[in-house]
């Protein structure tokens, strides 16, 4: 057993043969082969240990020793009630509960022509060839055991396909709900967004749940020439949950990806994003905020690979860590040999509110082209003493002054959001979190 792996033998692994019949695409031979292949790869790779450089700061041993079973049945009534009102303002909604679409809570009608939204289980029938190509593509990626496990146990996620030129005005609301109330369960949603030339869409993903569970979503996003995607993610997993998400994004020339992550939940969370920019004038802009307390561990790991010149990327993350929470930010920008005229910027600011909180940051640049503008910045610290004094001198008590400053710090990240309604939504979430902190 290599020191680079953590041995893991989850109960759900043993149910592989039985479980496959109930998972999407059971009658499809190539998919079954892909699942078996994924399991073989997981058996080989297992979970990465901290000796693997990109897992240096995130320890999966607690995950490895939890007895996760396959999900069995729908989510409980209480959770269902919480899910029901999420994003109802938006007309298009897809709810996935315990790895399956929840038709009663979903509303997939009213989409314009050329826009196709469905759960994975449906897409495997209606868009078989497309899914086959993309599933094979993801399987061929240089990935870790988590990606392999997702390939083996792939469950319902959302599939969004936009034809060339298709534009969808209303925000597409996706909700993932997980209920580990009756024992730990493992969920492996697979999402796919394929965007034709010049298409545009806005997606909001919300992740909520109860009890102990492990969500291991993999999202593949392929953007055609000039496509534009706004993708917002609210991570509000239960306080006992593990959330290990990975996004693989590919951008053609002129494509514009705008992402925002609000990470509030989970006992251990990691959002990993790998973006490959394959064409000129493409832009990859991501931002986010991680607000953690108690013993929460939150990890944001990004890799932006400028494979083509004349493209840009921008990353802005702001984290606030209270109690014994630990934040991890690993951001890497790579510029390949001929990717001249690349403009890449990255920033991570962290605020520690407690003596026991910890931040580990590793902003990384790997540059092989000379005519580029690349920069990164990382800061950590307490609130600015001068600013605090300024407010206090104007009669504002310390606790209020601190809260104001923390709020201002976080909201600078929200300014990266392009869209009034979405900004307002994150603002409410941030305010709720801040109300629970004593500054």
């Amino acid at each position, binding site marked *: 057993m290599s020191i680079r792996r953590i041995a893991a033998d989850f109960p759900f692994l043993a149910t592989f043969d039985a479980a496959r019949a109930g998972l999407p695409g059971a009658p499809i031979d190539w998919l079954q082969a892909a699942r078996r292949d994924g399991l073989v790869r997981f058996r080989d790779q297992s979970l990465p240990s901290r000796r693997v450089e990109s897992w240096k700061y995130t320890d999966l041993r607690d995950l490895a020793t939890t007895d996760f079973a396959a999900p069995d049945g729908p989510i409980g009534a209480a959770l269902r009630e919480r899910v029901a009102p999420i994003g109802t303002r938006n007309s298009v909604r897809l709810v996935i509960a315990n790895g399956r679409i929840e038709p009663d809570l979903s509303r997939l009608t009213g989409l314009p022509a050329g826009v196709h939204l469905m759960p994975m289980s449906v897409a495997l029938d209606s868009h078989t060839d497309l899914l086959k190509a993309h599933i094979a593509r993801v399987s061929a990626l240089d990935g870790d055991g988590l990606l392999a496990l997702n390939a083996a146990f792939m469950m319902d996620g959302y599939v969004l396909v936009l034809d060339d030129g298709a534009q969808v005005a209303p925000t597409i609301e996706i909700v993932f709900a997980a209920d580990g109330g009756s024992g730990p369960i493992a969920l492996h949603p697979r999402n796919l967004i394929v965007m034709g030339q010049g298409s545009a869409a806005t997606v909001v993903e919300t992740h909520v749940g109860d009890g102990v569970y492990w969500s291991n979503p993999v999202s593949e996003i392929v953007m055609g020439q000039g496509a534009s995607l706004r993708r917002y993610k609210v991570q509000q997993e239960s306080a006992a949950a593990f959330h290990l998400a990975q996004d693989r994004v590919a951008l053609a020339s002129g494509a514009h990806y705008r992402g925002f992550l609000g990470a509030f939940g989970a006992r251990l969370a990691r959002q990993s994003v790998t973006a490959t920019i394959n064409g000129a004038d493409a832009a990859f802009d991501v931002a986010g905020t991680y607000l953690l307390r108690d013993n929460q561990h939150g990890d944001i790991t990004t890799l932006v690979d400028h494979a083509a010149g004349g493209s840009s990327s921008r990353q802005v993350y702001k984290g606030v860590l209270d109690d014994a929470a630990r934040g991890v930010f690993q951001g890497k920008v790579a510029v390949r040999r001929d990717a001249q005229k690349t403009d890449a910027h990255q920033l991570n600011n962290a605020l520690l509110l407690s003596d026991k909180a910890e931040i580990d940051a590793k*902003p990384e640049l790997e540059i092989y082209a000379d005519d580029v503008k690349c*920069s990164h910045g990382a800061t950590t610290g307490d609130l600015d003493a001068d600013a605090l004094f300024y407010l206090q001198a104007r009669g504002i008590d310390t606790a209020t002054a601190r809260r104001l400053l923390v709020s201002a710090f976080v909201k600078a990240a929200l300014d990266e959001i392009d869209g009034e309604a979405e900004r307002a939504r994150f603002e409410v979430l941030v305010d709720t979190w801040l109300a629970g902190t004593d500054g």
Partner: protein
Amino acid sequence: MANISESETIGAATTERYKYGFVTDIESDTAPKGLDESTVRFISAKKDEPDWLLQWRLKAFRQWLDKADEEPTWAKVNYPKIDYQDSYYYSAPKQQETLNSLDEVDPKLLETYNKLGIPLQEQMMLAGVAVDAVFDSVSVATTFKEELSKHGVIFCPISEAVQKHPELVKKYLGSVVPVADNFFATLNSAVFTDGSFVYVPEGVRCPMELSTYFRINAAQTGQFERTLIIADKGSYVSYLEGCTAPMRDEHQLHAAVVELIALDDAEIKYSTVQNWYPGDENGKGGIYNFVTKRGACRGRNSKISWTQVETGSAITWKYPSCILQGDNSVGEFYSIAITNNFQQADTGTKMIHMGKDTKSRIISKGISAGHAESTYRGLVKVMPGATGARNFTQCDSLLIGEKCGAHTVPYIEVRNKTAQVEHEATTSKISDDQLLYCRQRGLSAEDATTLIVNGFCRQVLQELPMEFAVEAQKLVGISLEGSVG
């Protein structure tokens, strides 16, 4: 605009030959090739070492054997696997009787120094520099000893310190870089041959800059210097280290260990200019420079400042670090790393904040040209007890030409909320505007580039002592010749 100058010169092969590439033929007293326990015993016996040191070496050697598969691979450097049995571990210039003056030194050695331009005699007096010149592995000439001894400063080869000041060596050797620290440090602990020892007593401000020139001479001899500098309470010392090496086709391994200890209110300034043979323009030959340098700010208000100008070596693997234990202690790291042709440099620092109100500052300037790869790799770690810790880090990289690479890998680990840690890094090329401005005023593309690069490095160059600053500025130009536009 800049395109004109680029097309003129980019691609033109390096023409500046390595100035210091000559070999002095003197009779070496060499240990048989290869490394086993008997090699370690041979070195120890040659040095007439006490038993405790032999045991220390043997313990290190056994640990190194256990580490056989732990040769670091995390650095962004590529080289063929080193055969540690295919190298000599001891090579000393012919043993002399005790030297009373320079006249007794082998004239061939003196000739070498003259070629290198080391100001050993009158020039040295003028320069006010005491030189403990290490020729290969044994220090053969130590000067200004009287002046130093008046102040109680001990400056001698470490092999001499082992004999004359065993209590100091025993107390501090391996206390900053433990024997088991890393693969190369463990190897060094087993087979180190010589190096410098400095002890500055309480309250003494060392009256001159201390300087040592290291040279690697005999072919295929790895050099394993061991340097130990102790600044007692309230003392100050500035130490300069400069390196040149002759041209060789075979890669040569250099695995030194440098340990600095600063007690209460003491300050150590350690400056390095490293211009060892970098290999030729096709990447053949050159030194492997795998060095462990670390300083411990043990006392309150102590300060350790590292300044390095790295222009040589085929591969540089070096992270001069500071452990800030004492309250209010300060660590600094100023670095210029210039890589050209097929050179690879993976260098940076670690600042470990343990004491209250500790401060650190990191300024790193990396310049890559040709097919070279330059990486800044650093760690800023603030421990829970380091209340009020402060760090500022700035890492800038400059790329010259489109075949090179520049990378930045900083690690920031903060476990105290009152710590203020700032890191910023940029990567860019020489701005067309700056180049145009210089060209308009009649400077050649090459001169303009040298000027701009020197400006880019200014923050670091100004930290160097005068003697080094001049040499370093010249080196910047020489290192980039033939590769710039």
